């Protein structure tokens, strides 16, 4: 236990990951080791444009670095208290899916989809204020981690009983459908969460009402410590899509382009009123469940195998290969990221903690709403 902890202490962020990046086959969808995938479609994939590709790399790197800062630095310094959950190794789902959303769309990211907040317009300062429990943060200290959102930005956060957001996604999609402007809702959840009744109820409801919802299952192989074979009895969860009356696909969740393409198709269906889609993204959680979990229950070899499929390194390699990016540009990107993180962390640390007595404010919404007095960082 101690050994594994020490190992992660010395684990390097981005640069290290890139060095160990391994082979990356651009344009292909890598097959995850634990099973085949349902083909996305008979037609070819639609590549995002170069600007989008660059943005995706930026968000992948920024996520990796920000979560490193949170989990390996601020938490270990005692500056972040409580639970810390990150999505190392599975950054591609949030990036590949969220980057396609328009204004009026809504997303319900999981707790391992850090990039969703960034892409929906939250600043690093706001995010760090929240993680550090600061009074000026988006939840004003009421909530930890990524348990905050903004309806205007179209991001509604999870609550700890995971899967509860799936019925909410039906609600936002119901309104979107009735308003008839072609807006859609994404909802991310893990494979463990699919065992919950709320996910079943929501998928059934979405199919019955043909709601514009895209159910994205980030299947990262472990629900806390429980492996998939103890969670469900089917090979691929995507078979559940047709069981409810919607398409179901299984894709490589570590391939940001595969995520992009699967979600693009699902969104296209949804925007024209053809209803929901279920997308299973096979990925791997390259950490414990939380910062205090050493993940001894995960065979070391699995980490090694999945390290070869690192989504950040894969996209970077592709962009080099396609000559869409130079090493200099990447360096500049990394420097900007480091600078932004330094700024956000320093800003959050120097920001005031809330007054204890504020705990009783803002329980109810009313004409004189306490939340209306909040100070935004933006």
């Amino acid at each position, binding site marked *: 236990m101690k050994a594994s902890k020490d190992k992660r202490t010395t684990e390097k962020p981005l640069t290290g990951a890139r060095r160990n990046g391994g082979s990356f086959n651009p344009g292909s969808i890598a097959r995850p080791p634990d099973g085949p995938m349902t083909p996305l479609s008979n037609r070819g994939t639609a590549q995002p444009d170069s600007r989008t590709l660059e943005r995706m790399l930026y968000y992948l790197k920024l996520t990796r670095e920000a979560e490193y800062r949170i989990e390996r630095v601020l938490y270990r310094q005692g500056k972040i208290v409580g639970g810390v959950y990150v999505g190392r190794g599975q950054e591609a789902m949030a990036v590949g899916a969220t980057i396609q959303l328009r204004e009026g769309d809504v997303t319900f990211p999981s707790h391992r989809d850090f990039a969703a907040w960034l892409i929906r317009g939250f600043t690093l300062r706001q995010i760090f204020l929240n993680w550090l429990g600061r009074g000026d943060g988006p939840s004003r200290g009421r909530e930890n981690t990524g348990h905050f959102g903004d*309806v205007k930005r179209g991001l509604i956060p999870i609550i700890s009983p995971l899967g509860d957001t799936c019925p909410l996604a039906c609600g936002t999609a119901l309104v979107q459908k009735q308003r008839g402007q072609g807006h859609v809702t994404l909802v991310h959840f893990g494979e463990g969460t699919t065992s919950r009744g709320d996910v079943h109820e929501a998928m059934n409801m979405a199919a019955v009402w043909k709601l514009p919802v895209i159910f994205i299952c980030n299947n990262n192989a472990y629900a806390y410590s429980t492996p998939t074979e103890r969670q469900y009895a089917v090979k691929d969860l995507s078979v559940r899509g047709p069981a409810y009356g919607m398409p179901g696909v299984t894709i490589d969740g570590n391939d940001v382009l595969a995520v992009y393409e699967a979600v693009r198709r699902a969104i296209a269906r949804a925007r024209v009123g053809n209803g929901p889609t279920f997308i299973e993204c096979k990925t791997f959680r390259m950490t414990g469940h939380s910062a205090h979990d050493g993940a001894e229950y995960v065979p070391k070899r699995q980490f090694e195998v999945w390290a070869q499929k690192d989504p950040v390194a894969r996209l970077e390699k592709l962009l080099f290969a396609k000559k869409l990016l130079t090493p200099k540009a990447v360096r500049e990107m990394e420097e900007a990221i480091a600078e932004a993180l330094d700024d956000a962390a320093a800003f959050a640390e120097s920001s005031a903690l809330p007054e204890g007595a504020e705990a009783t404010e803002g329980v109810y919404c009313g004409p004189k709403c306490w939340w209306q007095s909040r100070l935004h960082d933006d």
Partner: protein
Amino acid sequence: MPVLTHLEAIRQGLWEEMERDPSVFLIGEDIAAYGGAFKVTQGLLEKFGADRVIDAPISESAIVGAAVGAALMGMRPVVEMQFMDFIACGFDQIVNMAAKIHYRWGPAVPMVIRGPSGAGVHGGPYHSQSNEMWFVHTPGLKVVVPATAYDAKGLIKAAIRDENPVIFYEHKFLYRRIKDETPEEDYVVPIGKARIAREGTDISVITYGAMVWTALEAAQELEKERISLEVIDLRSLLPYDEEAVLESVRKCNKVMLLHEDTRIGGFAGELAAVIAEKAFEDLDGPVVRITAPDTPVPFSPPLEEYFLPNARKVAEAARRLAVY
């Protein structure tokens, strides 16, 4: 002024709010074409259409969750629970999601969950519960329990206009048994304000819901014995009208707390605590609770009758307290 049943008053309140505000819509099981198990929503589909009166699959959690999602999108959903007993199936969405969102990150969650509760109709353990305390103990929710038709209409309208999730308890025994004058015009009864259902001097009976009528019946009986009961109808439990409670206690100096809900952890316990804290020196006798016993609600008529508080039990307790 037209005389409406409790049920008609609720329907009229829903109707008026849907006419007034296009963001109000109804969602629940068998509420549209069928008009609801108790026909509360009868006729609303024809008037407002299928987009605003929505029949849902039997998925209480998804129904409540979808309502939360819609509320975040600026709508004002009104959820019907076919029986309030089934609200347990949507419990997590209510207490963990709906109740806490505003506190956690600020948005309003304007929604209502309404449905029939209470016993007295031989409904058995799953069609009879008074489970309001599950929600009274959840900050962020409001809990409303009308007794009269007038209040039922005024409170459903207030609940729909509220910016917070409101759990609205209708008592199925009152649906068609209680009628009173209910104005056709627009009015609301503010949430959190109690009502003096009957003025009295000797003993204050603090109650809500169907038990208001039980208390009034006992008060009438005791009038002959020159025991004067004051009956306070709380109307709302969260927030509740603490000042009205204390005022009545300070006036009568003896108090009985009456509810159909079971005893331990019932609202009477909370009231007793507040009275002890804030009106201790106004008490001229022990605080008396009259509640159902701590059992599920039994089906067979003699068992159910034993279970439920009634006017006779209230009067007996009042006589004992009067001579204390």
